[in-house]
């Protein structure tokens, strides 16, 4: 771990939650069932607007990733 990565930051995303209508959508990486995802989620009701697979080992990089 190089130690220079930033904390996961919840980046504001334009739009409204399809579920509750709140505009508090944020994008950030999470660990869940099935591994790591980058999600766009409503911060009010926790509904996921999108969930895309993220790096397979999350924040961890292995030397052999360069292969």
């Amino acid at each position, binding site marked *: *771990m190089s*130690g220079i*990565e*930033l*904390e*996961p930051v919840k980046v504001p995303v334009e739009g409204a939650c*399809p*579920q*509750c209508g709140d505009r508090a959508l944020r994008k*950030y*990486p*999470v*660990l*869940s*069932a*099935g*591994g790591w*995802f980058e*999600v766009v*989620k409503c911060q*009010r*009701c*926790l*509904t*996921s607007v999108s*969930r895309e697979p993220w790096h*397979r*080992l*999350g*924040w*961890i*990089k*292995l*030397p*052999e990733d360069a292969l």
Partner: protein
Amino acid sequence: MAGTHPAPPAGERAQLLRELDSAEFEARYGCDRFTATMLTNRCRYVAAHMANQVRSHAFSPVIRDGSDLCAMVSGPAELGYAMAAVSETMPLFYGSIPDAVRIVIEEYGADEMDEGDVLIVNDYYRVGTHLNDVCLMQPVFRDGRIVAVATIRAHFLDMGGIAMGGFEVVKKSTWEDGLRIPPTLLVSRGRTVTSVLKLLYDNTRLGSLCVPDLMTEIKALDMGVSLLGETIDRYGVEAFTGAVRYACDVSAEAIGEGLRTVPDGVYEGEDWLDGDGLPDSPEYSVKVRITKVGDRAEIDLRGSSGPTRTAINGAWPDIKTGLAYALKSLLDPTTPVSSGTLRNVDVIVPPSAMFNVGPPLPCQMYFLVVYTMVHATYRALNPVLGERAVATGYVTASASGHGRRPDGLEGSLVDSAGPAVIGAWGATRHGDADSSQQSSLGNLINDGVEIHELRGPIVWAASDYVPDSAGAGRHRGGAAIVHDTLWRVPAAHTMQLLFHARRPTAGGGVNGGGSGPTTTAWIFDASVSDDGARLPELPSTLEGELYRGATPFGGVVHPDTHAVDPDGELVVLEGKLARPAGAVVRVLSAAGGGWGDPWTRDPELVKRDVRDEYVSIEGAARDYGVVVVGDLRHPERLAVDGPATEELRRSSRPSESTGPQPDPPERSVARRG
């Protein structure tokens, strides 16, 4: 989404599985409910058959007697190899194994694999836990593609590295931990790749004991793959795949329904490790911030401590172990675990933390980090759970004596866990807790005193419950135990896993229940055993002058008397304590916490506890407000003085102590060694 259907929006109540009619069920799972149920059971049985075969045919005692293994059944690639079932095992595996197959086969390449291939892997950065836990995976192919995977994970006695067996805290890097195996072909189309076996022989200390276990595991995988294949041929790939999804949905729904019983809100908790085993260590903490809405939760771990300087670290897969265990044990204790278990939970993980390290940091003691995460989650949720709150108990702590062994190797002189795995549990709404359990995420079989003494030059002199040590409560926690071991040879002593002593979280009571002493260790001079010639008969007490002459080597003690003292100083051992033959090691294993107000405990139960020496007559009055008359030489004549009890409980009730416990203060540190 692990190939399973996405969770519905939170505000809406999803249609529950039991509410689906036959047509809806078939449309969702591609088979009827009976077939799905039956195939789910089948997956569980196949996992159990594989584990039983390994257990009854393995060579090494840790698997055969200790049962340190698990087997699992996973689905096809399009479900992300979701795990449908896992055998009887230690819950310490529960978070990491559901993802392991996906991580390994996707990296190795499903296209590169053939029927009869087995992969081996133990790398914690990929599959979690520690290097001793070696996974073998064999896919089931139909029509040229992977439709299921059988996996076995079992403990390898040694994986190389600087410490025989691996259990050493002070390691600086993964290379000191041992041989790290990326996804590697161990069996190619049914033929073992002998060069890999040689790699294991040449880089580990006990290959002649462990490689036979691998051969047994390969046979068990073959059997599992054949049973799965027969099942899939009989019911079809579609039905099997549907059943894997169904199994995952059952777990997800159960946790979701459990979450639904918690009021929406934000809950925070923190728990601490005393240090990393080196001098001048800070405390390390896990912080959880749980946002709960409807049947889902987001758990934010930001703000937790960074990596430690030693082998007390964990890799990311074990984050899920801590959280899955904590949530299941509080909200859904009985539904079987699968890849669906954490579907309703998202975790925000800081890029570098003691539970999320990468190369080159070592992870041998990952489980200490897992317990810290479990306790942090308990501290967050217990206050809101009301009567469902669960008091915590002991966490594994192990004293070991080192030297040159009869087999010529340098290492621990006793080949069995002995007293290390024995300690108390916390109480729950269902009743009092046992005093002799093992840490909640472990599930090994205890060898017992005689076998322990046959496996090393020691006399296990006593394991006795300490009166008045249990966390008091309407339901009482388990008692603290003094475990005394007489060493018959010179040895260098150390306390390996004692990192939950500074703060009384381990053994913490709930709902007004009390806490008992935390784990502590001392070494007594050979004079207490006449240099090993006499059985030391140390009293089972925590008080008095007994400890003044002893050397504390773990825990929090009074600086002068060395007795257990919550306001005392934390002992940090530098190096090992060399002692001649006749030294006596005493480990006090932490008590379990109580549940509920002790002043409401049934006086008859308090009397029973006095009769059975869990509580003294004085303790009954002081801790429970119950006046018991009589004396212990006449146990059946003990009686509750009803009027005196009523009066005592009315007049001298201690101040109310309900609500969440405040974080205890840090304590000063003393160094030994």
